[in-house]
């Protein structure tokens, strides 16, 4: 059955991007792999709902995104608590040294509200257009644009301390900006 082989090939080809999206959303590779596995199982079980000729990758991203959101709602309390923890860690020595590394970026991403986080990743890293991202997140294009803008601004504020250490002047300006 060629259609099924095509489906399998297309899903396989999407896995690397799905994993990158998933780990950017949840910050944990094990959990990201589980999200991708669940996405593939659901996609496979609901192949009929895929409209041939439309973007398979966007369809899979939508499934992953919706699954993550359902899981997130269950874990909301835990995530909200994280903000206080992050403020404490910011003052620890390891948080104040070095440049922005992936670990810090990953962590900073987790402090964005999930709708801003997903919008920023879809547009800023996955390479979807605002229109495609709006479709994946089931909202208006203008909403995606404003979420991306707010996400960029907030991420800059969170990461300001690390970047600002390049020069004292920059540091001072950035700190003033962040306060």
């Amino acid at each position, binding site marked *: 059955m060629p259609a099924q082989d095509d489906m399998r090939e297309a899903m396989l080809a999407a896995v*690397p991007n799905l994993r990158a999206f998933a780990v950017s959303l949840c910050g944990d590779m094990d959990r990201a792999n589980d999200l991708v596995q669940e996405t593939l199982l659901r996609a496979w079980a609901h192949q009929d709902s895929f409209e041939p000729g439309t973007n398979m990758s966007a369809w899979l991203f939508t499934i992953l995104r919706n699954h993550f959101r359902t899981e997130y709602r269950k874990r909301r309390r835990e995530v909200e608590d994280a903000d206080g923890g992050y403020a404490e860690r910011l003052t620890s020595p390891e948080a104040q040294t070095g440049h922005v590394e992936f670990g810090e970026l990953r962590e900073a991403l987790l402090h964005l509200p999930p709708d801003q986080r997903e919008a920023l990743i879809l547009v*800023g890293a996955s390479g979807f257009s605002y229109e495609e991202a709006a479709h994946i997140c089931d909202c208006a294009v203008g909403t995606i644009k404003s979420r991306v803008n707010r996400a960029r601004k907030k991420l800059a504020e969170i990461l300001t301390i690390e*970047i600002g250490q390049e020069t004292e002047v920059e540091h001072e300006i950035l700190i003033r900006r962040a306060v």
Partner: protein
Amino acid sequence: MPQTEKLDESPKGRLSRDVQRKIGQQLRAMYTDVVNEGVPDRFADLLRRLDEKNK
């Protein structure tokens, strides 16, 4: 919007653009890092199993 342009000419505006560019690059680099890991065996195996079950 003249007000925005004026703001962007300030050192703060330039710096903010630099920060944004760096963050954008980091975000894409972080993402690409994972994409470059390819397809772990577990997913290829999973799809093969699903495929065989349907045939």
